[in-house]
């Protein structure tokens, strides 16, 4: 009995510690139910669990980042169709794939290009039935036929993003042209970049005239050396809210994702956006239906719903990414960021680099330890 008491005390101690140290991640991945509480009509409809004509239960399980699908779009879908939406969120693509592989029952997943490519290799995607998506033709062909879905069989592109430089002209006395300017001693201790190995090593590779997806150890070694010389200029690494540092005057220049650039510009229109002359990185977030989806018909219905031009424009105006929908352009209200066509043309996709990921990660760890 003494023994058991001792084990119990030890366990209690361990739990206390775990609770004390583990308050970070989990709050981001809880589930919530959206829709159904917005008006009397939707309440009546969601309380009706009878299967639709196809025999499918009136439920749609969506899995993506928090708030990536705007709330009003989800509520409108529920109101119109009576399909109740369960919105679960993940905080990283990798978390998504882990949960999907572990048998998570999701009907519609919205995630990034490279992870969709991996999921496709693992046979986790279901082929889309385009006859159930009349609005499929609205998709801008510029965002189709990419490496993760060359035949457009599995995915519907939702939004595209390009990380860009943004700087505060009040704090800089020269014009910033590209990534190389980050190494300028004038930026000592005043740069914020995302806390992300691939993106930051990627921009370093670009200054060397190499690909974002370089796997050659010799080239990566060269990039590592160059990256290390950037350390004195780095004020902070921030993945989630780098615009705060730009807005509070903490940093003079930042490298961040499209939505974050637009957020910063909305607050301070004097900030200047730079399309780096060395070339751009590019990414597309797309929707797919998992092979094991319990309600694929509802998912098709939802895809068609969001591909409607007006609705798609409404989404783009709220999420601050680049629209992938040709039919949406005439309805767009927020024109804060128009990326020149030639910049997009030269942009390079960031793809999975297989086991070189380890090298990238090690360089990143060493960079931080500098």
């Amino acid at each position: 009995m003494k023994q058991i008491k001792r084990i119990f005390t030890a366990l209690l101690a361990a739990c206390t510690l775990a609770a004390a140290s583990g308050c970070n991640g989990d709050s981001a991945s809880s589930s919530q139910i959206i829709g159904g509480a917005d008006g009397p009509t939707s309440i009546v409809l969601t309380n009706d669990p009878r299967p639709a004509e196809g025999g499918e239960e009136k439920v749609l399980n969506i899995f993506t980042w928090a708030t990536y699908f705007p709330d009003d779009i989800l509520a409108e879908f529920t109101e119109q169709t009576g399909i109740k939406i369960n919105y679960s969120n993940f905080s990283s693509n990798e978390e998504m794939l882990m949960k999907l592989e572990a048998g998570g029952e999701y009907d519609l997943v919205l995630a990034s290009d490279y992870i969709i490519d991996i999921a496709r290799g693992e046979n986790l995607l279901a082929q889309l039935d385009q006859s159930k998506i009349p609005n499929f033709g609205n998709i801008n062909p510029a965002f189709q036929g990419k490496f993760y879905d060359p035949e457009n069989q599995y995915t519907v592109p939702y939004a595209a993003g390009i990380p860009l430089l943004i700087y505060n002209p009040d704090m800089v006395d020269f014009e910033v042209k590209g990534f190389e300017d980050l190494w300028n001693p004038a930026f000592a201790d005043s740069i914020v970049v995302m806390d992300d190995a691939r993106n930051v090593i990627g921009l370093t590779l670009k200054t060397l005239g190499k690909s974002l997806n370089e796997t050659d150890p010799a080239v990566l070694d060269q990039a590592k050396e160059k990256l290390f010389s950037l350390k004195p200029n780095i004020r902070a690494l921030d993945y989630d809210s780098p615009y705060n540092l730009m807005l509070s005057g903490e940093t003079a220049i930042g490298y961040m994702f499209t939505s974050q650039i637009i957020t910063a510009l909305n607050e301070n229109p004097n900030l200047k956006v730079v399309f780096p002359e060395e070339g751009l990185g590019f990414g597309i977030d797309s929707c797919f239906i998992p092979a094991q989806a319990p309600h694929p018909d509802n998912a098709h219905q939802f895809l068609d719903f969001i591909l409607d031009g007006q609705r798609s424009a409404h989404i783009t105006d709220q999420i601050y990414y680049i629209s992938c929908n040709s039919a949406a352009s005439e309805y767009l209200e927020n024109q804060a960021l128009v990326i020149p066509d030639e910049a997009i043309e030269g942009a390079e996709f960031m793809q999975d680099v297989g086991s070189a990921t380890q090298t990238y990660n090690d360089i990143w760890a060493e960079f931080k330890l500098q």
Partner: protein
Amino acid sequence: MNKRQNRFPAAAVPFLLWTVVFVAIPLIYILCMSFLKRAQTWGVVAEFSFDSYARMVTPTYLKVYAQSMWLAVLTTLFTLLIGYPFSYFVSRLSERRRSLVLLLVVVPFWTNSLVRIYGWMILLRSQGVINTLLIALGVIETPLKLLYNFGAVLVGMIYALLPFMILSTYSAIEKLDPSLVEAARDLGAGRWRAFWTVTVPMTRAGIMAGCVLVFIPSVGLFFISDLLGGAKTMLLGNLIKNELLTARDWPMGAALSVVMMAMTLLVIGIYQKCSGERGLEGIL
């Protein structure tokens, strides 16, 4: 030996089941995982290897452990230097004031620690409370760079973990019989001598418990270094998170977790040796 005492207690079954399912099996799973290999794109290859452990002794990783340990040691030291005198004076207060002060120590726990760390960011940033105040008072002209450095991380760590130190040292100091200190003084010991030879040894268990409670979480509290240090430092906690989620190298993440657990056990071992306690009851 009494036969009745040896009988397996039925009441312990749910607890044992819980331990096996939620503690033993996951631990064994992590241990096994750490000896596998990363697959090219996703998942692991069922192939026995020491690769992860071999990679762990490279200079980069050794530096991560050193940095984590250094931060943990400093945090423990500072919380002790602040927490012990604090507890000492609280124990001298009247009963009513004492419980009020202890309540105030615990109150911040009612708020999420992440939110409290954001509070520190508002205080420390260049247009933050401290800088604005100093500029308004004419003490400085350009804002001080208070945020995004090692000092800011240390302040955040001490702030987050101080209550653990205060509560454990307080419970030890409170139990101390003041007449023992008086006896030492009567027998000619000076203030300091009485403190070092009577008070400190008598409260050693509380001090050690506080150190363990501060040291162990401080190795893993990576969000504080991410937010206040601008993610420029790499701690063991960050490394494990990166290996699992970014590099998708589960065996490496598992191996690092095994090392972290070994480090924790080592600290608890030292605690047991120094405090003379065999279990961990003293901590609670």
